[in-house]
């Protein structure tokens, strides 16, 4: 079933000019995005959840043009997990509580918190202080907290950038099972191409910003430093 579809999507800001091929994302699948740095993968995620607005073209979520939807509701359903983790001061448990409160939903039970931490390979006690976590540990806890928010679609931007290969594999393995169980759709950007054959149900490949876009847009420059 088609969940997300783009039509003639493009984004321009300053020197950044990105034109996307028409894309389709199937429901309940784990779709990986690949392509060279600067091809607009992260930008695509931000367009999909409405934290950026496209210059031209349309995005359809379950058949509805996302520009006509309430953007906050869109983001509640299509959740973007930031590349850079953010945890509040306090305990791991506090973060589950605070983030869920920001979405006005009940705090997950202790057993559920433990499950989310397990999926994200964050083997910490919920009472652990976040100030004492290292970079990689923060990312794991952050991933677990994001999972607890219960969105329909997850856009994972480099969720394993601070994890070693074994931990990253364990995370994606459990994430896939969790997604299948809950009917969650995931899109994933990763720098580690070795994960793709094992975990992807579908693959979207974006090209480097094409030189042809210059002539078609008659722009003086379309060099794209943005990722």
């Amino acid at each position, binding site marked *: 079933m088609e969940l997300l579809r783009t039509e003639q999507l493009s984004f321009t800001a300053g020197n950044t000019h990105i034109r996307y091929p028409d894309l389709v994302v199937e429901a309940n699948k784990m779709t990986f995005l690949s392509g060279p740095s600067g091809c607009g993968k992260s930008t695509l995620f931000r367009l999909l*959840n*409405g*934290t*950026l*607005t496209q210059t031209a073209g349309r995005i359809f979520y379950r058949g509805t043009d996302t520009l006509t939807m309430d*953007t*906050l*509701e*869109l*983001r*509640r359903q299509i*959740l*973007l*997990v*930031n590349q*850079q*983790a*953010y945890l509040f001061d306090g305990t791991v448990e506090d973060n589950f509580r605070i*983030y869920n409160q*920001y*979405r006005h939903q009940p705090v997950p039970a202790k057993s559920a918190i433990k499950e989310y931490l397990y999926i994200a390979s964050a083997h910490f006690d919920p009472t652990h202080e976040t100030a004492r976590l290292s970079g990689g540990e923060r990312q794991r806890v952050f991933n677990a907290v*994001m999972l607890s*928010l219960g*969105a329909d679609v997850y856009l994972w931007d480099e969720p394993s950038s601070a994890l070693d290969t074994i931990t990253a594999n364990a995370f994606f393995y459990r994430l896939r099972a969790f997604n299948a169980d809950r009917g969650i759709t995931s899109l994933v950007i990763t720098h580690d191409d070795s994960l793709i054959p094992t975990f992807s149900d579908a693959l979207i490949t974006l090209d480097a910003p094409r030189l042809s876009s210059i002539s078609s847009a008659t722009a003086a420059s379309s060099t794209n430093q943005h990722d």
Partner: protein
Amino acid sequence: MTESLSMQLSGFASIYLLLLIVGAIFKKCHIQQTKFLLLASLQMTVQLIIAGYVLLYIFKYPSPIFTCTYLALMIGFAIHRALNKNKWLNNKFKWITILSIVLSGAFIVGFMMIAVIQKDIFTPQYIIPISGMLVSAIMNGSTLALKAFRESMDGQRNRIEVLMNIGTPPQEIVHPFVNQAMETALLPTLNNMVGMGIVSLPGMMTGQILAGALPNEAVLYQITIMIANSTAVSLVSFATLYFGCRTLWNDRYQITIPSAK
């Protein structure tokens, strides 16, 4: 005029000798601000002398037009300073800042004149010095509140982005920064209140005592001014930030995080 007020010209001029000490310290510590020190002292002297004579004239020939012009200049300068120190403000935010300064100034000065001092509102001897104190508190309060607001948001970009990405309404993301900035703006005023009478005899009270007022009466004025001050600072920082922060996001709830320009 009482005798206690007059000052010998030679006595007055001697104060400038102290600038030599400041200059010597600057030189010793390699602080390259000697020119600025001289300029600032000169500018202050000229401005105050002009103000003195202008006020002398206004008090002698009181007219609501003069008084209002003086007040307008005062508020205009306060607005100019607050905007100049916060160049990052977008246009709407600028207008909200201007309105907040004008309205909180008008309210607090009006309250002081009508409810507390109970004199004709345009009596220049009262309204001008009182507005001077309150408007400068408002100017400092709004400048500080805006600066603290921008800095705390700029330092927490990651948090703001994450909360935006999970679908948090922008006002819930931004309000902690508003509250924090208001606290920062208010703290100097509150600290000032605590030390008052023990560490310092504040300027207004000192002036009144030098002019021959009884100390127990001078403190009443000082107390009212201090409370009016803190009210003015809370009002202006609340109005500026509470309404101004709404200009930071668009109808798709995309927040533009202010950065230094």
